[in-house]
C-alpha cells in the first residue's frame, strides 16, 4: 500500500513538473503538449491505443517467452559443457554487440512486417542477459555442493548423469541468478518490440508513434508512450512477483539499511 502511494506521489510530482515547464516555457503543442492535452488524447484515442497496445503486448510477451527459453537453453549449454561454451560464447556476445537497429531491417526483410519479426527482435534483445545470467548461475554452484554431488554420484555408471545434475542441483541453484536475468529481460523486451515496429510494421505502439510524429500529433505520441511505459512496468512487476512465488528461497532480501 505504502509502495503504491509512493509511486503515485512520484508520478504526481513528475506531472506537476511537466505542467510547470509547459506554463513557463509555453512551447507550441507540436513540440511539447501539456498533461491535459495528453490526457485528452488518451481518452479520445483509447480504442486506437488499446488496439495497437495489444499488438505490442503480444509481441513483447511472445518475445519474452521465446528469448527466455532460448537464453535458458544456451545458458545451460554455456554453463554445463566446455565444448558448447567455445561454440556458443562468440554467438552470444555478438547477439548483444550488434545493435538491434542494425539487424532490424534484415529481420523485417526475412520475417515480414507482421508479428514474427518483432518477436524475433524482442527475443534477440533479451537473449544475452538471460543466457549470461543462467550460465553464471550454473557455473557458480557452491563448490562444497559440487563436491558433495561428485561423491554422491561417484562410481554410478547410469547414463544421463549430467541431465540429472542440472535438473536436481545446478538448475535450481541457478534460479536466483536466472531471476535477475529475467527481470532485466522484462525491462528491455519492450525496446526490442518497439524498435521492430519502428523499422517496419503495420501496427503496434511503435508504428503508432511514428505515424503520430509524422503528423505532428505529439499528444498522441505521448499517450502511446504512456501506454508503453505502463505495460513495461506492469510486465516487470508481474515477472518479479512470479519469480518470488516460484522460487521463494531466491527472493531478494531487503536492501542494505
Amino acid at each position, binding site marked *: 500500500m505504502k509502495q503504491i502511494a509512493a509511486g503515485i506521489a512520484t508520478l504526481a510530482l513528475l506531472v506537476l513538473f511537466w505542467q510547470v515547464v509547459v506554463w513557463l516555457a509555453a512551447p507550441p503543442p507540436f513540440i511539447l503538449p501539456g498533461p491535459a492535452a495528453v490526457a485528452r488524447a488518451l481518452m479520445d484515442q483509447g480504442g486506437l491505443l488499446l488496439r495497437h497496445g495489444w499488438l505490442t503486448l503480444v509481441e513483447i510477451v511472445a518475445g519474452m517467452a521465446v528469448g527466455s527459453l532460448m537464453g535458458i537453453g544456451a545458458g545451460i549449454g554455456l554453463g554445463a559443457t566446455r565444448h558448447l561454451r567455445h561454440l556458443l560464447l562468440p554467438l552470444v556476445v555478438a547477439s548483444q554487440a550488434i545493435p538491434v537497429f542494425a539487424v532490424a531491417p534484415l529481420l523485417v526483410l526475412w520475417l515480414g512486417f507482421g508479428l514474427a519479426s518483432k518477436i524475433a527482435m524482442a527475443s534477440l534483445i533479451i537473449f544475452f542477459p538471460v543466457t549470461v545470467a543462467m550460465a553464471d548461475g550454473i557455473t557458480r554452484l557452491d563448490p562444497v555442493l559440487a563436491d558433495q554431488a561428485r561423491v*554422491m554420484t*561417484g*562410481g554410478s555408471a547410469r547414463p544421463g*548423469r549430467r541431465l540429472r545434475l542440472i535438473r536436481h542441483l545446478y538448475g535450481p541453484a541457478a534460479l536466483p541468478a536466472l531471476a535477475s536475468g529475467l527481470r532485466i529481460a522484462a525491462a528491455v523486451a519492450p525496446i526490442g518490440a518497439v524498435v521492430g515496429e519502428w523499422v517496419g510494421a503495420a501496427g503496434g505502439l511503435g508504428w503508432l508513434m511514428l505515424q503520430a510524429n509524422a503528423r505532428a500529433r505529439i499528444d498522441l505520441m505521448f499517450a502511446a508512450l504512456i501506454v508503453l511505459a505502463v505495460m513495461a512496468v506492469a510486465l516487470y512487476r508481474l515477472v518479479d512477483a512470479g519469480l518470488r512465488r516460484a522460487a521463494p528461497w531466491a527472493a531478494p532480501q531487503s536492501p542494505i539499511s
Partner: protein
Amino acid sequence: MASSPCPAGAGASPAVSITGADLRFGATCHFEGLDLVVEAGRTTCLLGPSGVGKSSLLRALAGLAPAGLSGRIAADDGRPLAGRVALMDRRDCLVPWASVLDNVMLGARLRGDAAEPERAAALLGRLGLHEALALRPAALSGGMRQRVALARTLYEARPVILMDEPFSALDAVTRYRLQGETAREIAGRTVLLVTHDPGEALRLGDRVLVLAGRPARLTEVAVPAGPLPRDPGAADVAAAESRLLAALAAEAA
C-alpha cells in the same frame, strides 16, 4: 546395531588407506610420504591443528583430488572406492529449494536411483526430525540442519563414511547430543572423522590419530577402553583428554 540403515548388498565395510601421501603448496611442504590407514568397521578420528592438511587427506579419500595432494588410495578388498563413500561436511550443504525429506534423498535423485521416502523418513525420525520432513532448510536451526545432513549421509548407505569437522559449527550442547546420535548411527562402518577437538576425538574414536608438526607426521594416541560414545566425564577419558591437549599444545609451541 540391528536397525542399521545399510541395506543388504552394500557390502562389508573395507579398510581404506592412502599411502605415500605428499601435500605441497608451491614451495611449502605440509607433509610427505604419509601413510594413513582407516581400519575396517571402526571409527578413526584424525586430530590436528587447522591447516595441517587433515581435510586434504579426507577429500583425497572421497575421490575429490584436492589441490597439492598426491598419494595412492586403496581399499583392502581391492575394489575402487568410488561409489562406496559418503561425505559429511562441516557445512550442512543442504539445498535451500528442497524439503528436508528431498534433501536426504538428493543423492538417489542425482544417481537416477529410485528414491525411498519411507527409508529417508525413518532415518529422519530416528534423529528426532519426524515433524520437519516437509520443511525447507531455512526453517531449521543449525543443529537440526546438521542432523538432516547426518541423515543424508546415512541414507547414502555407503560402507565408508568421511566426516570433515561435522559438528564444528554447532553450540556445545547441540554438539554433545549430535555426537552421541552419530556414534550410535555409524557404528560398524569404516569412518574417518576429522576434527580439531580432542574431546570429540576421544568421545567418538575407536582410534585417535594426531597429525601435527612441520612437516606433519601421524602419531597414534592410546585411547581409554569402553564402548562409544565415551563419557567425557569418566576419569580415564578426562585424563586422556588433558594429556592429549598438553601434547597438542607442546606440538604447537
